[in-house]
């Protein structure tokens, strides 16, 4: 599903050059639930940005769902994000002025889907996360956990090939965190590929496999953190 090889990402300012990613190679097969861990500054967020086509990169290749997405233009990347990827953000990123229905609706609108089909998908997605009854509420009327579940519904509504989650439980208390993780596992069991960035080892353990980043590359110590599932190693 996701194959990155020798990815290099450099941030340049007037004074400083930061090598956020050096020679990063990662591979995720379809249907996997992978956790990407690492301390802050390790390049987790950058990895996610690149994986999600939110940023471009200097060097290397990236194949997503069988297609080379290394050199797409802005419009093409937008289309890919819209159709193939579902995002879940740490701070939920719901649009405060819109009700839940309209929030979940956002990515579908960019796909120019007819109204009837959108309505059906939205209702199903909200049903899946258990918030269909509150469709007309606005985010500020919901708890953090509920907001994140709406965000998940938003990510799911478009039938993505892969879900990218950035610290999905970072802003939640432990009860809500568990709820959200349960939901993710439920979604995974349906066959969806999930890549989750987290710094919490307990959460990482709920994934099938763990990729540990250090200084912009996959750390050699990954093998020791296996809990279950197949071992995937660095590709040359």
């Amino acid at each position: 599903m996701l194959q990155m090889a020798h990815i290099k990402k450099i941030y340049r300012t007037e004074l400083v050059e930061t090598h956020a990613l050096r020679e990063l190679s990662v591979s995720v097969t379809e249907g996997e639930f992978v956790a990407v861990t690492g301390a802050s500054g390790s390049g987790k967020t950058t990895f996610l940005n690149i994986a999600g086509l939110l940023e471009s990169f200097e060097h290397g290749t990236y194949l997503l769902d069988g297609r080379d997405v290394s050199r797409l233009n802005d419009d093409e990347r937008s289309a890919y994000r819209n159709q193939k990827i579902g995002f879940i953000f740490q701070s939920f990123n719901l649009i405060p002025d819109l009700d839940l229905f309209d929030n979940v609706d956002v990515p579908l609108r960019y796909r120019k889907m007819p109204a009837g089909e959108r309505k059906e998908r939205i209702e199903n997605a909200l049903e899946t996360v258990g918030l269909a009854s509150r469709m007309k509420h606005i985010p500020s009327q919901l708890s953090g956990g509920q907001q994140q579940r709406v965000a998940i519904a938003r990510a799911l509504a478009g039938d993505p090939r892969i879900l990218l989650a950035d610290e999905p439980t970072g802003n939640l208390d432990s009860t809500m965190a568990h709820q959200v993780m349960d939901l993710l596992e439920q979604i995974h069991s349906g066959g969806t590929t999930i890549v989750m960035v987290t710094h919490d080892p307990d959460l990482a353990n709920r994934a099938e496999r763990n990729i540990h980043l250090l200084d912009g590359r996959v750390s050699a110590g990954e093998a020791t953190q296996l809990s279950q599932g197949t071992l995937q190693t660095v590709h040359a």
Partner: protein
Amino acid sequence: MGFRPMMSSLMRSKTGPLLVALQIAVTLAIVINSLYIVVQRVEKIGRDSGMDINNVIVLYVRGFGNDFDVVDSITNDIDLIKSIPGVVTATVSNHVPLSGSGSGTGLRIVADETIDAVPTGRYRWSEDGLDALGIKLSRGRNFLPEEVNFIIPDTDIPTPPSILVTQDLADDLFGEEDALGKTVYWGDMSMSTIVGIIGTMHGSWVNWDKFENIVIQPGKPANTTNKYIVRVEDGMRDALMPIIEQKLGESNRRRIVKSVRSLEELAARQYQSDRGMAIILSIVISLLIGLTALVIVGLSSFHVTQRTKQIGTRRALGARRIDIIKQFMLENWLVTTAGAALGIVLTVVVAYWLETSLELPRLDWRYLPPGILALWVLSSLAAFEPARRAASVPPAVATRSV
């Protein structure tokens, strides 16, 4: 983004957009009504006067002393002026068109006091009068020299039989009929015959609705203060004004030249308040448009900054740059349309107030569509740069933790 979600989003934080819409509405009302007034005034000033205004000089003279012979003085003066190279011709006149000073009277087509007379301005000048102002006769003939006599105040002058009238006066008097050769009656029931008709001519008072009604009698008024109307060749006016003044001054020390003015200057003074109004309103219109545009730019930019996170999220979810631009432009368009709708109502209200309380002419409704279009274009232009900036917010903003 769809229309309906945008509306419900606007409704939730409606104060800001409402204020902008209101501002657009009031701006529209002021601008359209003011523009109409400006155009009215410019048109008023630009009316064809029927005279060669740029080449006419007016002199106000007055003699003094016990045995001052006015008739003699006028004859000599006019002859002298005519002899100056560059002068086309000159006449003495009772009043000067477009000067703010004139004589008015009434004419009737029957000798009946009980019928209301048609109001008209009245001039008295010699056979050179028409030429001195560059007026063209459209029909009939000018005065003959033998018809022109001196008019001395407080003496008995029989009413001269021939007169010239403007077409407007002829229409007011005789309607569709041909006025040439017809008889009219003065206030004292004496009569005159129309021997010539002038197409268009302006009288002394530019704000009088009948100022294109003019009757001209042959005669050379010889009053205490007299007015000489002089026409000169193209381009020679400014050079000749001091020359004429000097030559007259030298020729007779008992007759002072009170002032020498160009007809252009006199006319401009009559239109001064109209010109002033047009200029002031134009300034107000410009300021208003500038302010509204700046506010739209300012507020739009602010909204972009406020919603940076949201923009990033949308981009992450698949919005292309063009989608973001469309979103912001559509929001702007919604607010502008609401403002324009309210603005139309306000424009009509203000126009009504101007017409009824302040007796201004009724607004021509055809000013509304171009006004609204211009407003729409202006608003879109103002909102475009912020929208463009919004579109360049990178998708990676979505994953930043603030």
